[in-house]
């Protein structure tokens, strides 16, 4: 093997030797990185010619040059270097790109500029960072890596999407999701949950169909200068994904394998065991009735048990079955769920063409019974010079994911994440033979389902295939003028199937129910642009771009349903014999934009960025509008007064202003719509929408920032502040029911909102020696939000939160809890403290809701990372934190049953916390009211919303911790021809600190919930993984 490779190199080298034989002189050398490690595949090019070569495996190169030629050395991840071709030997040290603000950044429409040429606020995340944590999609790996960007997992089910907000939430009604662009082409980020029964099944992230390992880097565009080119799609920020390209030179292989073990990130609420439940039942009965309960037969609490047995089938049954105890939390949970991730890639190239190809496989088991995820991906990117000035770039990415999900979030009885809290510990999960119990399960579990049985019996899967193909042709008309044409195709087919088996659960009554939906998403985008790069005099540098882009989206969903299946083995629709239902929906959307971009710098000292975008969108009745931005930058280090200050490498000031828009609403809402239902086998029209002339929201953005690099790039950082003013906000203004509309809302442009924030970044090499490096970096951002204008009729007043002028968006609004009355164990609320009434009452109807000054969104967040390299060993870690927000525990009904409604504690369960911390006797300062069957004031307190269930969302999480070792030097490995051999053990989310000790739920998923409510979804996960990465 090794010999063959060497032979290849020899032949390759000879080829080059002969090819250029007879030309002028020859220059050779070795290219290394800063640590003196040879770099293979570095492109060595003679400036202003197409002549070039690549370094070999040992970093050596050799090229024929004429005197006066300049050699350019380029390699991904390193700064380019230009060197005059003097003498016969030239050894080059390439400097790491990441340590410099001179790095090339990808900006709107894939334009590449160096940081000191651009005024845009762009954060870049490298492929190395993205592949650290092994989530099923790259979006989750962005958490904590981009200043001002919030990423929260909605569910721990593999494949479920996170909620992403860049610089806070900018809209109430329209989308808050950023625009995704892959290799310059906007891609579909539709919700794959469409048509899968109103989101009660696991959701599936369309970005999960992109293999994280195929991503070279991600740029996050945040400020006006960066996002204004995207006009009405830019208000929520833009995420630009650059996929990996081929690298010149001989074939280079990468093999990457990870095995991981996943568990719930935090323990979560603990439920009562079977004896605790009995105790609670006895206590509740005694408290409610006392001796009356037995019509005089009982005189003390310990006699109540026998009486209870006569009254409660559940208790009698439990007794008869030998007092079993089922710990549903354990039964539903899959401990140490296994994850495998396997990737193999190869790249090769010569001076004309290169390619990158990869295959990937991922299998991730869910942490909840029956959930799993499987992904297969393949990609090819091919680049070739068709002629000296014509370059063709073709890429194909295809992926298939099968997500075996579950019912999530809703209180549906077959949702395992609901059942694990709700189900009685007295209800045995298995029958006497040890099989999962189902025949009489409902009888012993208050009508609920055996969720383990139903999870295994029922199907809730999404099978998604996505193919993305891009063609890019670039024509260098002359040195200054480049024409580029791109066609991007993005096709997704999602098959969703929900089958409730006839044996047990939701499928029992209809004798089996199947619903299947095929969702087809197709969009294409075409871009034609002209870059004109020119100089006026020596110092005025211009780059002007004119661009036209057209994008079309087509969504088609076909859904069919049927019931009454002949037996439990037949699950496809053709087996259904009644209740047939079919529907299809189609929608399309077109977007067009004309964009002008001008980037100017004066001697790299003063920078100006101007953008203009004229955009049309079929979603609105008024379809066209324009958006623009202007940015100014000043590279102070280029000024004479700083040029000689050695400690300052870079000091730059940036200022940007612009207007973007948000068009993220449903399609065709501008029309008044009729829905046709069926009455008596004929069509029956129902008005389903008022129609609206609403148009996109506008966002004015002002950005100011300073960035610096000091002490030979050892200390780098930036500080910035922004203001976003959103106006013409879209509101689904509630109509009174008397407006006679079933969905009593209408979309209108009203109101203004202000988001402000400060963003800090700091990174330093604390120790930098050849053998020992210690790097520490941190980012921190603040978010502040205020609705500055909103007419009172558009105010949104929900049961627990409001959107009102002068307040935060979605500010919490509910009665204030005043504790449990120590005298009698009744719940207490403050009557109306805002208006000076500090009295308390147990009568909920007398209580006024209060504005609480907090919402679900954190007011600050940050991340601290460190990495220590000692010779071949590294240790690294990242801690993320956020806080200042409040989250609402909406899941109280499943935890705090007080036995007050008949059958509640009798048939279901309650939390251990309730058993331990309920009021027992006068004088108790208790967390929960007393147990009582009869008193409505206690009974209703569970569902009466108040600050009792509103928790501080402040938390910190050890996002990442890892230790790794590079085994390159081991001779055995070397002899195998392996260039790079790394082994790492990594922990993700291993430790979590939650400020509010009463919050038993994971704050991350509550923050990801649009309402800020805790949910009955799969909790976010932690994992430990072992990673093997081999380059050869």
């Amino acid at each position: 093997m090794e010999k063959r490779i060497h032979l290849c190199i020899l032949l390759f080298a000879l080829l080059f030797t002969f090819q250029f034989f007879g030309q002028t002189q020859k220059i050779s050398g070795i290219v290394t990185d800063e640590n003196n490690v040879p770099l293979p595949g570095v492109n060595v090019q003679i400036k202003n010619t197409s002549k070039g070569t690549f370094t070999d495996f040992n970093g050596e190169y050799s090229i024929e040059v004429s005197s006066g030629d300049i050699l350019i050395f380029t390699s991904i991840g390193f700064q380019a270097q230009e060197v005059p071709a003097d003498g016969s030997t030239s050894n080059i040290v390439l400097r790491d790109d990441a340590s410099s603000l001179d790095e090339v950044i990808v900006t709107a429409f894939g334009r590449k500029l160096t940081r000191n040429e651009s005024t845009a606020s762009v954060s870049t995340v490298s492929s190395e960072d993205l592949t650290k944590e092994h989530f099923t999609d790259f979006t989750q790996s962005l958490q904590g890596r981009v200043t001002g960007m919030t990423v929260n997992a909605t569910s721990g089910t593999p494949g479920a999407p996170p909620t992403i907000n860049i610089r806070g939430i900018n809209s109430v009604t329209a989308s808050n999701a950023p625009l995704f662009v892959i290799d310059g082409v906007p891609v579909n980020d539709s919700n794959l949950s469409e048509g899968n029964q109103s989101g009660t099944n696991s959701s599936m992230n369309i970005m999960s169909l992109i293999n994280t390992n195929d991503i070279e880097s991600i740029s996050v565009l945040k400020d006006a200068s960066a996002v204004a080119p995207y006009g009405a799609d830019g208000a929520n920020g833009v995420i630009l994904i650059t996929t990996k390209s081929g690298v010149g030179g001989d074939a280079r292989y990468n093999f990457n394998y990870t095995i991981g073990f996943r568990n719930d990130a935090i323990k979560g609420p603990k439920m009562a065991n079977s004896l605790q439940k009995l105790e609670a039942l006895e206590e509740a009965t005694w408290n409610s009735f006392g001796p009356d309960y037995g019509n005089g037969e009982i005189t003390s609490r310990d006699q109540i048990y026998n009486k209870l047995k006569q009254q409660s089938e559940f208790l009698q049954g439990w007794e008869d079955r030998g007092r079993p105890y089922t710990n549903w939390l354990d039964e539903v949970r899959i401990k140490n769920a296994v994850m495998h991730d396997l990737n193999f890639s190869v790249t090769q190239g010569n001076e004309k063409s290169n390619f990158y190809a990869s295959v990937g496989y991922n299998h991730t088991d869910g942490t909840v019974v029956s959930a799993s995820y499987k992904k297969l991906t393949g990609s090819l990117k091919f680049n070739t010079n068709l002629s000296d000035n014509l370059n063709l770039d073709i890429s194909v990415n295809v992926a298939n994911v099968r997500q075996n999900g579950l019912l999530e979030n809703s209180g549906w009885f077959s949702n395992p994440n609901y059942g694990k809290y709700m189900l009685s510990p007295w209800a045995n999960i298995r029958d006497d033979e040890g099989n999962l119990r189902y025949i009489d399960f409902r009888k012993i579990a208050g009508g609920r389902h055996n969720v383990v049985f139903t999870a295994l019996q029922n199907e809730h899967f999404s099978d998604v295939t996505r193919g993305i193909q891009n063609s890019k042709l670039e024509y260098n008309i002359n040195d200054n003028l480049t024409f580029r044409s791109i066609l991007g195709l993005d096709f997704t087919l999602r098959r969703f199937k929900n089958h409730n088996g006839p044996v047990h659960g939701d499928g029992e009554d209809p004798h089996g129910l199947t619903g299947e939906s095929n969702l087809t998403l197709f969009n294409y985008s075409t871009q034609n642009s002209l870059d004109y790069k020119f100089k006026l005099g020596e110092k005025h540098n211009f780059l002007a771009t004119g661009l036209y882009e057209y994008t079309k989206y087509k969504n088609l969903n076909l859904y069919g349903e049927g019931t009454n299946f002949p037996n439990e083995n037949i699950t496809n629709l053709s087996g259904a014999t009644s209740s047939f239902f079919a529907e299809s929906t189609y929608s399309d959307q077109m977007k067009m934009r004309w964009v002008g971009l001008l980037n100017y710098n004066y001697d790299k000292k003063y920078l100006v960025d101007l953008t203009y975008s004229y955009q049309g969108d079929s979603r609105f009745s008024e379809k066209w509008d324009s958006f623009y931005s202007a940015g100014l930058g000043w590279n102070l280090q280029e000024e004479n007064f700083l040029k000689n200050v050695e400690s300052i490498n870079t000091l730059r000031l940036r200022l940007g202003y612009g207007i973007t828009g948000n068009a993220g609403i449903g399609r065709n809402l501008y029309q008044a719509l009729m829905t046709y239902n069926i009455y008596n086998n004929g069509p029956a029209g129902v008005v389903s929408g008022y129609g609206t002339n609403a148009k996109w929201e506008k966002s004015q953005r002002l950005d100011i920032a300073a960035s610096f690099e000091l002490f030979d790039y050892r200390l780098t950082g930036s500080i910035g502040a922004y203001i976003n003013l959103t106006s013409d906000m879209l509101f689904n203004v509630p109509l009174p029911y008397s407006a006679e509309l079933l969905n009593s809302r209408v979309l209108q442009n009203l109101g203004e909102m202000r988001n402000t924030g400060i963003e800090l970044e700091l990174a330093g090499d604390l120790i930098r020696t050849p053998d020992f490096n210690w790097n520490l970096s941190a980012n921190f951002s603040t978010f502040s939000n205020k609705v500055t204008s909103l007419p009172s009729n558009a105010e949104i007043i929900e049961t627990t939160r409001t959107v009102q002028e002068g307040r935060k968006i979605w500010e919490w609004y509910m009665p204030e809890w005043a504790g449990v009355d120590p005298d009698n164990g009744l719940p207490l609320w403050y009557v109306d403290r805002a208006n000076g009434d500090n009295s308390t009452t147990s009568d909920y109807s007398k209580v006024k809701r209060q504005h609480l000054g907090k919402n679900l969104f954190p007011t600050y967040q940050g991340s601290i990372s460190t990495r220590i390299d000692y010779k071949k060993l590294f240790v690294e870690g990242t801690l993320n934190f956020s806080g200042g927000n409040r989250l609402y525990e909406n899941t109280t009904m499943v935890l705090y049953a007080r036995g007050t409604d008949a059958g509640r504690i009798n048939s279901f369960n309650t939390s251990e916390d309730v058993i331990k911390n309920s009021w027992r006797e006068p004088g108790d300062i208790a967390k929960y009211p007393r147990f009582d069957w009869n008193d409505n004031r206690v009974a209703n307190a569970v569902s009466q919303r108040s600050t009792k269930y509103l928790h501080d969302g402040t938390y910190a999480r050890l996002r990442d911790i890892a230790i790794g070792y590079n085994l390159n030097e081991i001779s055995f490995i070397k002899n195998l021809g392996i260039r790079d051999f790394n082994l790492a053990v990594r922990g993700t989310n291993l430790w979590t600190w939650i400020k509010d000790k009463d919050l038993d739920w994971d704050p991350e998923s509550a923050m990801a919930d649009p309402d800020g409510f805790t949910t009955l979804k799969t909790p976010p996960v932690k994992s430990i993984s072992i990673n093997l990465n081999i380059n050869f």
Partner: protein
Amino acid sequence: MKSTMIKYFGILIGFGFLFSCTTDPKIEDADPAEIHTIDNLRQFQDGAYQIMSRYQYWGRNQIVAGEVRADNVYANGRTQRFVSWSKMDINPTNGDTGSLFNYINATAANPNIIINTDLSALEGSYEKEDATHILGEAYIIRALANFDLLRNFGQQYLSNGEGLGVLYVTKFKDEDLDINNAPRGSVEENKAQLYSDIEDGIQHLKSSQDSQYATDKERITLDAAYAFLSRVAIYFKDYDKILSISNEVESLINKYPVTPSTDYVEYWKIQSPGPASIFEIHLDNTVSNEDNSINNIYRGQSYADLQAYDNLLQDVGFDTSDIRASKAMIDTINMFEEPGRWRNMGKYPSMLSDIGSDNIKMFRVEEVILNYAEALLEGENNTSKATTYLNMIPSNRNASLYSQATLDNILKERRKEFLFEGFRFYDLVRTGKTIRDIDSSTPNNHGVVSPGDDRLAMPYPQQEFDANRGTKQNPGY
């Protein structure tokens, strides 16, 4: 080679410019909420029936509202459904109350569009009588929706009330009405509007008796309009109103046979209107309310929240031979943990994959008969005639006859006949009876509710209250 390249290049460029020329996104701005043809007209009116058939209104909640707050059934709390209704401890934020209010109002939207459309200008050729008939249906359904709104949310029988009724909307998207600041009308105003709409409806239906729709029992007919008028009048104890149409009422009673006891169980099972039915809302298994159906709340595996009081049979006072107390109609079935609890078995009987596919029987001749008997008795003291009409019911139920009609035995017969159909609460309220607590050991019981109690009216829903500043809440909420 070169030519291929140029071709490819050309294709890409062409592609881009092709779209720039042709695709300014254009979609026609037609207002679909307008009536242009007779088909539109039929579809719009059927839209109102369709909304009525949903579980939020007549498909379930309206029926539950008339039962669970009275002395026939209670919510056992299995799925927490209707617990607060059963306790009569309803919050303005209660979801079922809000959706009931919403669906009742939405039912009136299409009738309002129809009533405010110039039907003489419809496109194409059509039978004028059909258009007139549909217009008549629209008036009746608008009245029916507002009547249900009033009897659930109005203050007509409250002692602390101010005589407030409901906002009686007469035009969809009415520019002259500030919907965000529109006060409730008074009960008296509402009553006048109801009678006026019913009168208009009757006139249009009368003049379109040749229409193909005149005999369609799954839509409003002239007979249904009279039946509805008798229901409204009985609710307001306007006995004279009923007596004033005694000819029409009597001929209606002659036209529709009371279901004989031998057919009674079957009458509830058949999936189309039986002989005794005047108007039914159509449901079948493709449009059923499924889990949310009235069937499922009475006895379905997944909900079964509404169960009869243990001593219901004794309390109602059924004869043992009464077909309405037979096992086919009401039985103790072994549901989950509660063996031997009484449940409605006979009304809305479909189960399993057909659950919720039974028509909702809106007006039966038996109701018109009992309304008429009550009017004869209370309005003109014609006891003998009242007794004759009253006895038409037990004589067809294998039950003993009444020697003489009294208000009490008419109410007793109404309770037997309309058990589980959503009449009981309104009968008790309108006659000023105390709602008794017939078994205080049952959970979620409302206890004793005296005449005039605040709880006899449901609270105005929070959204109505928040979005319409002209609205005033009912007392006690």
